[in-house]
């Protein structure tokens, strides 16, 4: 297996891009990544596009050919990768495999989602497609509702209070403030979060990731090719894994542990030859507040049931034991579903390169990004290490 390096990254601001189409967003992020990589577009041999809902929300499929057309990359190999909200992380894994296999030297992988083309009730329909249409969506439950089941079970099993869990949203907003690409670059108080309307009891609006537009892209290269282009700022992909769980959470024995995270993390740690204690900076997929603590536990950073306390006690601050979601996470950076996994990776890469601005973690060497589809049904864990 060849060594794989992140050569360039690029993204658009997350937000409501009324004047930009899904291809405008993708092309903007892709061109920035290519420029950052210091290569020519013609160096790209394959384009992988992560996206969940373009078919439903835009009436547009075949994003691989669409995006490569608009990038002027006639002839290039391409595919769209869909794994619900994990589409970005899983697309990245596919691009990693493509370069690690030695078949391609240079691959562009991007994620894109354009959610504001539709009204909220249709976005709700699109998101529940992450679970079983015939026996789950037909009950009327929403994606937030499925996560609400997890939330209730977590509070009951570990005796954790909603105030402790909801604090994750406060944390995210605090770090979005200094992220110029964040959808909501401002702070919120715990009181505001807890006073916001119920979406799916007990989940409140300000505990939920928003409806977002955005695109992010990464240029992956073989180590040899990367070294021929630049010697500084290289970040190696040292671990990359994807795992799955039983699709519908109510069929599982325990809602409070998302098994696929355990499996994907274990594989990625093993490949990277690291342990949880070696990780300096983390991005977790907190689509709803309760998932933040659960992911930190399942990734092996803290004991089951102690995740919320770990967060409230300041351990995930930028100068804490385990700096986490230092650009605002899904809650405040925003969650353009199929692009989110790539945003997380770009943010980890910035931290490892020392380009994180006011949110810079001092001397971060190893970072981890976790991307989740459905209620823990598909999980991608990617681990990165700064090359000196």
């Amino acid at each position, binding site marked *: 297996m060849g060594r794989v390096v992140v050569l360039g990254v690029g993204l658009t601001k997350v937000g409501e891009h009324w004047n930009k189409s899904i291809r405008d967003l993708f092309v903007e992020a892709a061109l920035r990544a290519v420029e950052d990589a210091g290569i020519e577009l013609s160096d790209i041999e394959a384009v992988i596009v992560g996206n969940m809902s373009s078919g439903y929300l835009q009436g547009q499929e075949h994003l691989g050919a669409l995006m490569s057309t608009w990038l002027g990359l006639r002839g290039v190999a391409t595919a769209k990768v869909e794994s619900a909200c994990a589409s970005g992380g899983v697309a990245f894994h596919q691009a990693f495999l493509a370069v690690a296999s030695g078949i391609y030297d240079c691959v562009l992988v991007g994620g894109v989602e354009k959610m504001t083309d539709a009204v909220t009730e249709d976005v709700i*329909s699109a998101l529940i497609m992450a679970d079983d249409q015939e026996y789950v969506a037909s009950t009327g439950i929403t994606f937030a509702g499925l996560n609400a089941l997890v939330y209730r079970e977590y509070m009951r099993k570990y005796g954790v209070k909603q105030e402790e869990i909801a604090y994750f949203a406060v944390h995210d907003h605090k770090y979005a403030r200094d992220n110029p690409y964040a959808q909501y670059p401002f702070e919120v108080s715990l009181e505001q979060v807890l006073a916001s309307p119920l979406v799916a009891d007990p989940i409140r609006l300000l505990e939920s990731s928003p409806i977002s537009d955005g695109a992010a892209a990464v240029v992956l290269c073989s180590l040899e090719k990367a070294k021929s282009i630049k010697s500084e700022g290289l970040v190696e992909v040292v671990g990359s894994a994807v795992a799955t769980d039983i699709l519908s959470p109510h069929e599982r024995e325990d*809602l409070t542990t998302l098994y696929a995270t355990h499996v994907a993390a274990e594989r990625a740690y093993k490949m990277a030859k690291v342990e949880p204690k070696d990780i300096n900076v983390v991005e977790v997929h907190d689509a709803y507040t309760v998932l933040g603590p659960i992911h930190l536990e399942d990734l092996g950073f803290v004991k089951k049931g102690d995740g919320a306390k770990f967060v409230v006690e300041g351990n995930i601050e930028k100068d804490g034991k385990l700096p986490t979601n230092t650009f605002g996470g899904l809650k405040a950076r925003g969650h353009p579903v199929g692009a989110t996994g790539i945003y997380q990776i770009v943010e980890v890469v910035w931290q490892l390169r020392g380009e994180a601005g006011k949110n810079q973690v001092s001397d971060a060497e190893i970072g981890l990004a976790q991307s989740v589809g459905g209620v823990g049904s598909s999980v991608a864990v990617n681990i990165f290490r700064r090359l000196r």
Partner: protein
Amino acid sequence: MIPSVPRVWREIRYRYRLIGCKCTDCGAVYFPPRPLCIKCGSRKMKELKLSEDGVLINYTIIHYASREFKYQTPFIVGVVKLREGVKVLAQIVDVDLSEIKEGIEVEAVFRKLREQGEQGIIEYGLKFRPKIKPK
């Protein structure tokens, strides 16, 4: 979602009658029925008519729903553990939102689930309500 009659029609047998399956090798029970056992890998699955009552073990109240369900909000969706031990996701009806709690006994009731699209194809199925105790 594109409205479709056959998509609803082919599930009727399982949805209306609560028919699942049982693994003849390890005894695991599933709803809806499936061709192989998730627990042991066996393909020897036998259809099983499930009991129409159970216990509510978890629930949420949906306040914002999709186009097809928004007229029903707020409504309860819960996880019902049937007597066979299998868990089913369903709406919980005929109960005041303030009276809903885990642990109550519930029974299946035949109801309309949703209307699909402008053609108005109606999907029926089972919901659950608090068990009415015989006097």
